């Protein structure tokens, strides 16, 4: 073996703890990278199976969907690894500056000295990367099993999907993926060793021959602020506190990686915790509010185009539905077990109207526009309700059957909170419905229903500001709400009724037919949301936990090295009368100071990120910002626990140390 390689090897052998930590970090990074690459390979295999080798029409979009997250996660892994692994090399190189100086005296060139550090990285990679690849394949295997579990549940809900699907990911061992993962990690490790290596090459021969290879500590003049803090520490924690804060200040660079690792963990956990909190809130909001348990629906395909005459954008329905047909279907579905089915059609896009400010409440004017206007252009929603329930509505509004009823209620999301307003004044007696082709007709409003009078079926998402219930209309979609005793049997029955009514060829797709029908349980959508939600969170949490394990190797090795390497300093402190208890206090304080630093950086950033995540969400949904108290608390406890625990373990190894022995053996170095 070359002498430089041998020196690297013996260094690895001597500092077992750090070697183990570095190996763990490298293996974990490689494992994570392998999982990411394997998922890309498996996802690719699935996409090829579903869409064909060239990914079909939307090839680039799908590729982006597969590669962008992979690149994002890959980058996170690389950054974390570089921070952690380069710290290992930096500390290990700094400790041996004296040795490098001696090598220089004997005639080693700078290149030879940096190759000592590079050899270290090569040796560590040679062991860590293969272990990581195997570990990663195992993790990917488990991950894909878990994914398939979720996808299986999703496939079972396929009733509600337009096309029957059968999603599953197969575990693919792709040598390309393994090679990519191994190469990325190898270069990450090499890069991490490169800078410390260059620094080692600049080791001063003169410094190392001057003394017995003592490590020189840069003197820093304390500023006013530091002196103030020093006095405060002295008062609060006594002499041990001052020593602890001095150590942290002096070894700032060693602790920096630890602080970065811990702070990253805090940021990720707080952000993720808040994300899951918001996802839950969103899920709650998405929970259907109707009491009916099954929904059957019809929906026409639609094209949007610009009308040549008026220049307005218009929607054209391929197969619009006459509400009389919806009515018939409602009757047929009601015949199943005699319970009435609530049928309602929906046309959101055909009509708009222009209303003068006089008929609109002040509150609603504020919703419609930022500044008051004389006239407001408002999209109109036409809702034909099945005959039975339409009659009931007319009775409630006190008007004759055949009337047009205004639903005088508008619900909107005001930056995260749901607000109900009464939009129109009683002076609104008629509405002129305009179409994009320029035609228009005026409808009188015969009756009005207030929010309190409206049935629950009419409170669905995304309504237009003006909503008219009518007896008959041509609409794009129609839904039938039912509460059967046997849901599955009813769904089957509904499907036959729908097939009869609309004679769709079940195998052809939405686009060719021009319409689609389906029957599904009301909470199926919520279930899909929930599955997707849990799947994403499970993966994010696993990723963050594994990423944190990489960081954790650094915390452990820094904390241990901090204690073990200073055995001599401790022995000296003990020889001048510091008690074991005082020593432990000092170390505990060091770990707490280190944690506080990490928290001081991590918590504000994490909380800021949670706020940023919420910003776009609350633009769209009534999910207000909630301060992630729980996560802030958990992270604080976690970080303090981790550093304190590791320091405690490390101190334990010092307990039976003999003062004289330590001073004697360590001074000869």
């Amino acid at each position, binding site marked *: 073996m070359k*002498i430089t390689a041998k*020196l690297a090897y013996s260094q690895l052998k001597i500092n077992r703890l750090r070697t183990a930590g570095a190996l763990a970090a490298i293996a974990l990074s490689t494992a994570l990278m392998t999982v990411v690459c394997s998922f890309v390979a498996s996802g690719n295999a699935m996409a090829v199976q579903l869409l064909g080798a060239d990914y079909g029409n939307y090839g680039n979009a799908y590729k982006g969907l597969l590669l962008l997250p992979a690149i994002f996660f890959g980058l996170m892994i690389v950054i974390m690894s570089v921070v952690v692994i380069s710290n290992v090399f930096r500390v290990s190189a700094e400790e041996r500056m004296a040795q490098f100086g001696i090598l*220089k*005296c*004997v*005639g080693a060139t700078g290149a*030879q000295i940096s190759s000592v550090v590079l050899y270290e990285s090569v040796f560590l990679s040679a062991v860590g990367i293969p272990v990581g690849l195997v570990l990663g394949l195992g993790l990917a295997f488990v991950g894909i099993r878990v994914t398939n579990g979720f996808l299986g549940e999703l496939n079972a809900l396929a009733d509600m999907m337009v096309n029957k699907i059968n999603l599953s990911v197969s575990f693919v061992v792709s040598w390309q993926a393994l090679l990519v993962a191994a190469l990325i990690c190898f270069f990450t490790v090499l890069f991490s060793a490169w800078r410390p290596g260059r620094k080692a090459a600049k080791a001063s*021969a003169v410094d190392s021959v001057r003394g*017995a*290879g003592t490590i020189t500590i840069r003197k820093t003049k304390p500023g006013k602020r530091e002196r103030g803090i020093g006095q405060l520490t002295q008062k609060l924690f006594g002499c041990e506190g001052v020593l602890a804060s001095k150590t942290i200040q002096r070894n700032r660079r060693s602790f920096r990686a630890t602080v970065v690792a811990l702070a990253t963990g805090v940021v990720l956990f707080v952000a993720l915790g808040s994300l899951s909190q918001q996802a839950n809130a969103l899920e709650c909001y998405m929970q259907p509010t109707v009491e009916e348990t099954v929904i059957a629906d019809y929906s026409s395909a639609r094209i949007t185009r610009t009308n040549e005459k008026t220049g307005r954008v218009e929607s054209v329905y391929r197969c619009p539905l006459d509400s009389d047909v919806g009515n018939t279907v409602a009757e047929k579905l009601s015949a199943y077990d005699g319970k009435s089915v609530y049928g309602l059609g929906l046309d959101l896009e055909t009509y708009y109207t222009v209303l003068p400010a006089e008929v609109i409440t002040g509150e609603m004017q504020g919703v419609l526009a930022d500044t008051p206007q004389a006239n407001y252009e408002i999209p109109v929603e036409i809702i034909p309700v099945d005959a039975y329930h339409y009659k009931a509505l007319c009775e409630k509004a006190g008007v004759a059957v055949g009337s047009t009823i205004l639903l005088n209620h508008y619900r909107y999301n005001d930056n995260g909170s749901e607000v109900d307003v009464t939009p129109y004044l009683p002076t609104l007696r008629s509405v002129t419905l305009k179409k994009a082709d320029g035609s228009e007709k005026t409808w009188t409003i015969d009756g009005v229903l207030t929010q309190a009078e409206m049935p629950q079926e009419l409170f669905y998402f995304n309504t237009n500001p003006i909503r008219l219930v009518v007896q008959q209309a041509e609409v794009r979609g129609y839904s039938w709400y039912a509460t059967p005793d046997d849901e599955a049997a009813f769904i089957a029955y509904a499907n036959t009724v729908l097939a009869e009514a609309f004679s769709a060829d079940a195998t052809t797709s939405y686009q060719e037919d021009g319409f689609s029908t389906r029957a599904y349980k009301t909470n199926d959508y919520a279930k899909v949301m929930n599955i997707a939600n849990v799947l994403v969170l499970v993966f994010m949490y696993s990723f963050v936990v594994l990423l944190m394990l990489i960081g954790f190797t650094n915390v452990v090795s820094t904390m241990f090295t901090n204690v073990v390497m200073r055995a001599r300093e401790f022995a000296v402190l003990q020889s001048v009368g510091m008690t074991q208890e005082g020593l432990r206090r000092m170390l505990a304080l060091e770990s707490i100071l280190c944690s506080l630093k990490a928290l001081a950086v991590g918590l504000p950033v994490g909380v800021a990120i949670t706020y940023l995540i919420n910003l776009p969400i609350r633009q769209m949904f009534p999910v207000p910002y909630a301060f992630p108290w729980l996560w802030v608390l958990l992270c604080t406890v976690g970080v303090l626990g981790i550093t304190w625990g590791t320091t405690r373990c490390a101190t334990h190894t010092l307990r039976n140390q003999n003062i004289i022995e330590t001073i004697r053996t360590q001074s000869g170095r």
Partner: protein
Amino acid sequence: MAILTVEGLSKIYGEGTTAVAALKGVSFAVNKGEFVAIIGASGSGKSTLMNLIGGIDRPTAGRVTIDGNDIYKLSESERAIFRRRNVGMVYQFYNLIATLTAEENITLPRLLDNRKPDAAKLAHILAMTGLTERATHLPSELSGGQQQRVSIGRALINDPAFILADEPTGNLDSKSSHEIMDLLKLANKRSHQTLLVITHDEKIALQADRIITIGDGTILSDEVVKG
């Protein structure tokens, strides 16, 4: 013939008000095979001079020429290789690599050259330094005197034209000091290697051919001891 010439060598540490002039224009020449002792008060600049001659520091001004090579005209790595092959250095604190055995420490300059250590040569050096029994021991398993002999072995392994020793006996008792000095003198007499020794010990200085006295960064006297 001069193997070493030092011309106008100055070294200033630090800058501004805290600047320390450790050497102030020192010039002398040493002939091949000479044994020169350098003495002087503590802090007078002896180690600074020696580090500059060994090429591990950089002078503020002046030249050091060894065997016709102006060593500070060489690049950093050329100087390292030059040192590896032509200069053997011995220090007060033995400066061995803690993770290498005695044998490996001795052969280090050759290993750095990617040359196989010549077995006969190594055996000879081990025998000469009395370390045959201790060849596979780590520095931490050796006494101070033994460690110093290892570092002398390391200085001699490449048959350098030059041996520089900075207080080689500073940490040793008088018996070990004798052994170390005998070793160095042996190399000087038998292989005609030029020997420069810095010492505080008058008895050692008196064994030299020539004594250079340094004071406050300048040469105070330069006298030949024996004719």
